[in-house]
């Protein structure tokens, strides 16, 4: 596989606050995110040569981005890969820049979930079926089954398991209090998390991320052009994307105690970025904590913790802001909520700011290499996982 390292630079980013934006529609979220990115990069909107747009339900076609921004008949491509859509749109834009087809490209992800009146971000019933004679479920139900299986697989008592998951929620809630743009900015306790009402047993309220509206954007260029725009640009070091084929359902020996898509995406990204020991070489990671159990399993899937041992690292505080490998320094999906198509770029925004030393109270000292991870789909059907590794200039 040809290398991709250090060919594309991020020169500007923007991100709206995430939450219940009753007063804003998706066009407002797009404009607010993109104009922050234009200002950050110091470019005029009309300089943008092409754009990639990520959304699950907030607008089909390139026109969904063109209409609010009033772009001038440029190429705009929509990418849909559910919760990994933001990462994937970013990568497709990177491909266009690295190929030399364009010099200056915009990526925007935005999602308006709170107009639907639906208490869940997505339901996974129909694909690949269309008859609707199928079992219907929302994501918490899928990840709850993963949690039950993970505890069973490693002989973890469910009560202990719940308290380990609670620690992840407590950590992310603490980080959320330091994030001005987060939906939830409130400390919680382990007891509060463990005793919260059940959503899908064994997962309770604080094991689940919120549902919010939000938008985020990035402006990218080829690495050799980046200096024109700023000194502290951020380079793409590697990426990996992997899609499963319903193994958990159709293969009767599938363990459902890990997410193979994560493993494969990380492996590809690490090889490209030259990472041999992720726990040592990565300074911070923003991962897809749609549920606490997801974050726990991601620690193992991405090689931060040995299999079955993530709980020891959680208890040791490894992934806290002051730990060896801070994860979800901004509070994660737990505190930002999860406007599906926007989340990937929100995650990248946090890493971008951290690498520039602009993460204020959340700043990870000396952060040089950051990881962004997204996971669309569920472990019960199948997922697309995306891992992007970015780093500062050498």
């Amino acid at each position, binding site marked *: 596989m040809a290398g991709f390292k250090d060919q594309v630079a991020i020169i500007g980013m923007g991100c709206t606050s995430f939450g219940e934006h009753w007063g804003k529609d998706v066009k407002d979220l797009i404009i607010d995110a993109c104009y922050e990115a234009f200002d950050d990069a110091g470019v005029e909107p009309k300089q943008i040569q092409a754009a990639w747009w990520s959304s699950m339900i907030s607008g089909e076609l390139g026109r969904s981005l063109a209409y609010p921004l009033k772009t001038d008949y440029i190429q705009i491509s929509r990418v849909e890969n559910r919760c990994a859509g933001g990462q994937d749109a970013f990568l497709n834009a990177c491909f266009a820049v690295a190929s030399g087809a364009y010099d200056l490209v915009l990526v925007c992800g935005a999602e308006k979930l709170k107009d639907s009146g639906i208490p*869940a971000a997505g339901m996974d019933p129909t694909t690949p079926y269309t008859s609707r004679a199928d079992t*219907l479920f929302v994501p918490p139900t899928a990840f709850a089954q993963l949690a*039950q299986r993970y505890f069973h697989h490693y002989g973890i008592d469910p009560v202990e398991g719940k308290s380990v998951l609670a620690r992840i929620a407590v950590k992310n809630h603490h980080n959320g209090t330091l994030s001005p743009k987060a939906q939830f900015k409130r400390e919680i306790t382990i007891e509060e998390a463990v005793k919260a009402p059940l959503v899908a047993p064994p997962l309770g309220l604080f094991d689940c991320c919120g549902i919010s509206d939000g938008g985020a954007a990035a402006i990218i260029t080829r690495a050799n052009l980046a200096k024109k725009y700023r000194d502290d640009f951020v380079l793409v070091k590697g990426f990996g994307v992997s899609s499963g084929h319903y193994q958990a359902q159709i293969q009767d020996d599938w363990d459902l105690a890990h997410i193979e898509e994560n493993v494969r995406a990380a492996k590809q990204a690490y090889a490209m970025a030259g990472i041999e020991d992720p726990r040592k070489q990565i300074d911070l990671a923003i991962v897809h904590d749609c549920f606490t159990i997801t974050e726990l399993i991601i620690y193992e899937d991405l090689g931060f913790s040995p299999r079955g041992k993530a709980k020891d690292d959680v208890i040791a505080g490894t992934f806290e802001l002051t730990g060896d490998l801070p994860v979800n320094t901004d509070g994660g999906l737990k505190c930002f909520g999860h406007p599906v198509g926007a989340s990937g770029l929100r995650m990248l925004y946090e890493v971008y700011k951290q690498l520039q030393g602009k993460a204020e109270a959340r700043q990870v000292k000396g952060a040089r290499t950051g990881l962004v991870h997204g996971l669309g789909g569920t472990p019960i059907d199948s997922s697309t996982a995306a891992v992007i590794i970015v780093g500062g200039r050498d």
Partner: protein
Amino acid sequence: MVGIESFGAYIPKWRMALDLIVKGMPGERAVAGPDEDSVTMAVAAVLNCLKGEGRSQVDGLFFASTTSPFSEKQMATLISKAADLREDIMTADFASSLRAGTNAILLAADAVKAGSARKVVVVAADCRLGAPGSEHERNGGDGAAALLISRDNVAISLESGASVANEIFDIWRRSKDIFTTSWESRFDLTEGYMKSMSGAIVTLMKKTNLTANDFAKVVFYCPDGRTSTTLARSLGFDPKKQLQNPLFGSLGNTGTSSPLLLLGAALEEASPGNNILLAAYGSGSDALTFKVNDKIGQIKNRLKVSIQLKSKRMVPDYFTYLKWRGLVLDKDIRVPYSVTYASAPAIFRERDRIFPLHGSRCRVCGSIEYPSQRICGKCQAKDDFEAIALSDKRGKIFTSSKDPVTGDLVGLINFEGGGRIFCNLSDGDLSEFKIDTPVEMSFRKLELLSSDSISSYIWKAVPLRS
């Protein structure tokens, strides 16, 4: 010799204490669960009836019910599909009268006798809905029974039959009505039930030269707890010794399926050589005489009426019952965008997956997969698989949870002998579906949106019944 080769009953697991309807009233009635209807109960009865029986010689399936979920759309086709019967068979729905079940038995027997069918399945099912608070609601019950009518290997021969037609408005339900209406009970019972039943039974006894003493058991459709005793006595039977207990207070009057279920209960105690009289009522009467032979032992260990009566769960409260029956307004669940309405072509295209629960077995690596995969998930062989029916396979819970939006239980099941399904779980609480719990499959309805115009059906996993 034409008669019954096999029998299968289905009594839903749910019971409603009559005390929930009238404070202090003893007893209970069987109630179909929220995901059950006459069709799902019929499928369960047919599968119990055909367990271990060859299906290739079944040339017909007759479905008898006054509570088919569709006024226009044959349900015998759907039931025979779910039971994995051939497609080149005669199917028919018998409706509009509580003796539709015996109508179907008599005509099935004639078809077999005439040689136009080798074996015919007759299944009767009803979900008896009484107006809230009414006697009809208290006396009613939900259930199904199936018989395999054939010429060979018969365990109970059908000796003779007689029918009476009686045009009378005693009990009726117009197409637009939800509940049945009846005239004054004195009139109904005298000019309706007693007159028609006696007429058919007396004719039959004359025809067969049998007297009351010749019968080990008489099985009557019973409109209430008393009148059938009066009828039996008037015909010279000893109600205590000979009349089959109508199961009021435990099962209730299950309508079309009632005479067949009561026949099943009677067969549990029958011995070779016994004569059994069966009589059903509804705008007239059908009376049938059966003779039990020594093959009765072969079908006695079927899932019995008595065992199913004991295997039960109580409906928690009356409001829950009303919700299940759609008698209180329940708004549509708000479902996210990707859940659209059921599609008729998609259901048609996937009928082998949806109704008889076929998965695929890879001819190259042997991997069993559900839904059927054209490309094997394990070895990637293309279009090299055979269908495998999973509906009669038992399995174990691999993982489970409860969905917060639909409120339904879901889980992954690993089948004995291989294969896995992601499906809903029913007839139990989440605590009854822990990892490694054994389960079996049950055909249920799937109604998410009350605005749907197509009823979908789906296989779910349920705790073992026996």
